[in-house]
């Protein structure tokens, strides 16, 4: 059964009534401008103290009785065939309990898994690895994308081409669009391979029962149910016989979705040894083998007419995800700016390097960098202010409004009209546009429980990738039940709870909060039925607010929430909710923009980001503190991509030469600029909470804004990331 609800949707100055059809038992979606008691108020992370004091248990912290320590032997060669593996010496080492040779006999990148051991200490496991004798037949390899495309290049996959999937798209007539343009530009932009650098490396603790038919795994994952289902398939177990736990997760950024190799290895060793086994990857393996953002080379052509309107966008791109694909970057070219003639071509190039895996807004930071720097080059050529150029080429009213908010907060007009420094230190500013689509998916279910002591518990089989999931789920339940947030406890990260989806694609908050709200509403109905006879009212006449359950028309007739809970006949009372499919709402996309200011030392080439203003829409913001934290993280990761990060491969040896956090450069505390975040609230009416994801949209434009600011500062575009001092000096002709 369903009902029709009219919602006022949109944003300030641009709202309209939209009628949506929702299931009967869905809470009525929060309306635009509706004042809520705890939603939207800054709330400190409910698990902040646990993390700050070290009491939070990550996979790394799991210790089980009799547990062994696993280690993985990896190929030192980028391309080889394994003729033989001799495990006998490792098997006979005292303290070693299990040794496995892994099945794949063809090595395609340096760092690929070859064998694994489990021993009574991690040092002993490492010693045992050294005793494994592997007879490799080395083969020609290629780690450079350009070389990989050559006719005589070594083939990564047998006799198959090193050119993998090719994707093309075309609308309108690009040659004609370039022909009629008043101005055109053509330039090539490159971005490096970026690794995820999760602070908690990939890893797992696995334990089989004595019968070998039940498996429990603690692992650092973005999807406890994804891992459960993968393990069930891999080990031919019923899903119910597999339990996966991830109480806390130290970063994933897309690389920890399913049963990754070290999880499978831990479980196989545990089954072989008959006791639990822990495998946590060392930092070097994390860099080399657990995924990365592919590199890119993007040849961009733009055309504009005399009014500064785009007449053509043309992208020819290639990228390498090592032995994997997924290196495309065309998405921003197709949708951020309005143009009737757009053509894109993307090609995956295979190399003998570690495989790509999804990484925060896959493809977008690369594409956005190339598109936005090209936009700036075009604006300069056409003599148009860069922000005005973007205004003229957007048809998204949300983004248009955000440009104005950001420009005021940043002081765009003042900063672009003031003269540049005449000294060695040059200041510059840039702006870039973001886009994402994170309305969430159906599938998750939630349970909300009221206990006799008046406390409330939320249980969902989701996990916290670091975004503050526990906190926002508690806030949503507290809002629905009229309680302060500290009365609600969130339990997540366990497949014993009701199903939820992985935390990726910025989908956690918009997928889970509606299920929690519906469950809390159902629980509220049950509590109303307990309270109604005492208050001499009908359940439908009651409301939950200010820690009480009361008669809506006469709030003085009330019972404390805790007093109602004391009348629960059993120990607790609970209700479930489900995430129903999205309704038809206002918009399913998100805009956003970021402004950056940099200082470039033209004598040393060093770039420092001094100020970033970010304006983002993410539907309804549940907790401005955790939301701001996500934007901060997205910007800092973007600064890393813009200025520092670069996986370097030795072309002679085929190995990564900087697999440490010393040599793989990351932003540090001194690289953090002033960051000002404004949330632009858009009522989308797509779910009962109206929440949209924020993790990725906050990262899309960051590196591009920095690159544009550097161009403004020195007057020359640096078309390759990272913008290192040598590249700046080369651009200035001083290298």
């Amino acid at each position, binding site marked *: 059964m369903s009902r029709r609800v009219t919602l006022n949707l949109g944003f300030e100055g641009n709202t309209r009534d939209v009628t949506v059809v929702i299931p009967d038992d869905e809470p009525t979606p929060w309306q635009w401008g509706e004042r809520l008691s705890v939603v939207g108020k800054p709330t400190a992370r409910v698990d902040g103290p646990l993390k700050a004091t070290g009491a939070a248990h990550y996979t790394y912290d799991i210790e089980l009785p009799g547990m062994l320590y696993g280690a993985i032997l990896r190929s030192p060669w980028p391309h080889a065939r394994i003729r033989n593996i001799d495990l006998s010496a490792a098997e006979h080492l005292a303290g070693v309990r299990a040794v496995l040779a892994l*099945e*794949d006999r*063809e090595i*395609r990148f340096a760092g*690929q898994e070859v064998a694994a051991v489990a021993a009574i200490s991690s040092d002993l496991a490492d010693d045992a690895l050294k005793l494994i004798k592997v007879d490799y037949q080395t083969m020609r390899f290629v780690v450079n994308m350009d070389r990989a495309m050559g006719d005589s290049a070594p083939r990564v*996959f*047998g006799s*198959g081409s090193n050119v*993998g*999937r090719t*994707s093309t798209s075309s609308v309108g007539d690009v040659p004609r669009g370039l022909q009629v343009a008043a101005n055109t530009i053509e330039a090539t932009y490159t971005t490096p391979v970026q690794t995820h650098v999760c602070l908690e490396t990939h890893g797992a603790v696995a334990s089989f029962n004595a019968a070998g038919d039940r498996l429990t795994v603690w692992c650092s994952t973005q*999807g406890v149910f*994804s891992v459960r289902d*993968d393990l069930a*398939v*891999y080990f031919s177990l019923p899903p119910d016989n597999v339990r996966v736990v991830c109480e806390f997760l130290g970063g994933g950024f*897309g690389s920890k*979705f*399913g*049963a*990754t*190799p070290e999880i*499978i290895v831990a479980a196989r060793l545990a089954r072989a040894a008959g006791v639990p086994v822990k495998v946590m990857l060392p930092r070097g393996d994390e860099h080399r083998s657990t*995924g990365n953002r592919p590199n890119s080379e993007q040849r961009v052509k733009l055309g504009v007419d005399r009014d500064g309107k785009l007449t053509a966008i043309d992208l020819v791109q290639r990228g390498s*995800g090592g*032995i*994997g*694909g*997924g*290196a*495309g*970057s*065309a*998405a921003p070219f197709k949708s951020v700016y309005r143009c009737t003639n757009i053509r894109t071509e*993307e090609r*995956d190039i*295979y190399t003998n390097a570690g*495989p*790509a*895996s*999804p990484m925060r807004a*896959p*493809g977008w930071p690369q594409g956005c960098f190339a598109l936005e720097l090209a936009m700036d080059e075009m604006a300069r050529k056409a003599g148009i202010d860069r922000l005005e150029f973007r205004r003229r080429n957007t048809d998204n009213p949300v983004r248009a409004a955000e440009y104005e908010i950001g420009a005021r907060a940043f002081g765009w007009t003042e900063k672009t009209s003031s003269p540049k420094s005449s000294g060695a230190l040059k200041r510059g500013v840039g702006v870039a546009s973001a886009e994402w689509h994170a309305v969430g*998916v*159906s*599938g998750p279910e939630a349970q909300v429980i009221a206990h006799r002591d008046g406390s409330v518990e939320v249980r969902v089989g989701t996990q916290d990738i670091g975004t503050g999931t526990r906190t926002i789920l508690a806030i949503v339940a507290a809002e629905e039940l009229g309680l302060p947030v500290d009365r609600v406890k969130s339990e997540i990260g366990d497949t014993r709870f009701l199903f939820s*989806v*992985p935390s*990726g*694609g910025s*989908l956690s908050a918009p997928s889970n909060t509606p299920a929690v709200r519906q469950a809390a509403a159902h629980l509220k109905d049950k509590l109303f039925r307990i309270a109604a006879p005492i208050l001499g009212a009908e359940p439908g006449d009651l409301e939950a607010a200010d820690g009480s359950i009361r008669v809506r028309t006469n709030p003085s007739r009330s019972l404390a929430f805790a007093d109602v809970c004391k009348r629960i006949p059993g120990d607790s009372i609970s209700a479930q909710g489900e995430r129903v*499919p999205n309704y038809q709402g206002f918009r399913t996309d998100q805009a956003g923009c970021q402004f950056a200011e940099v200082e470039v030392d033209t004598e040393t080439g060093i770039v420092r980001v001094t100020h970033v203003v970010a304006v983002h829409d993410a539907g309804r913001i549940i907790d401005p503190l955790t939301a701001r934290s996500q934007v901060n993280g997205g910007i800092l990761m973007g600064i890393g991509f813009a200025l520092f990060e670069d996986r370097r491969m030795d072309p002679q040896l085929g190995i990564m030469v900087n697999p440490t956090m010393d040599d793989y450069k990351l932003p540090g505390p001194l690289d953090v600029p002033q960051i000002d975040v404004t949330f632009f609230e858009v009522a989308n009416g797509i779910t009962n909470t109206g929440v949209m994801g924020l993790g990725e949209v906050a990262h899309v434009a960051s590196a591009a804004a920095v690159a544009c600011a550097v161009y403004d500062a020195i007057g020359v575009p640096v078309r390759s990331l990272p913008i290192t001092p040598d590249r700046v000096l080369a651009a200035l002709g001083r290298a």
Partner: protein
Amino acid sequence: MPPPSARFCAHLRTKTAYYRTPDGERIFKPDVSTACYTCLKTQRPVGPDGRPVDAQSCGTERGCFQPE
């Protein structure tokens, strides 16, 4: 057109395939150029037959294909 479950190998993995449509089908988007694929059997972007894996090539014509 057969349902996706009959078209894609049971061991093919990609980020979107960990989500399901409202009808319960795993979500594959063969046209998305940023999709990273792996095979659950190898946990790598290469199948047991030594060839790359993706939604377009992991079909019934491969000896390692297994229906869901």
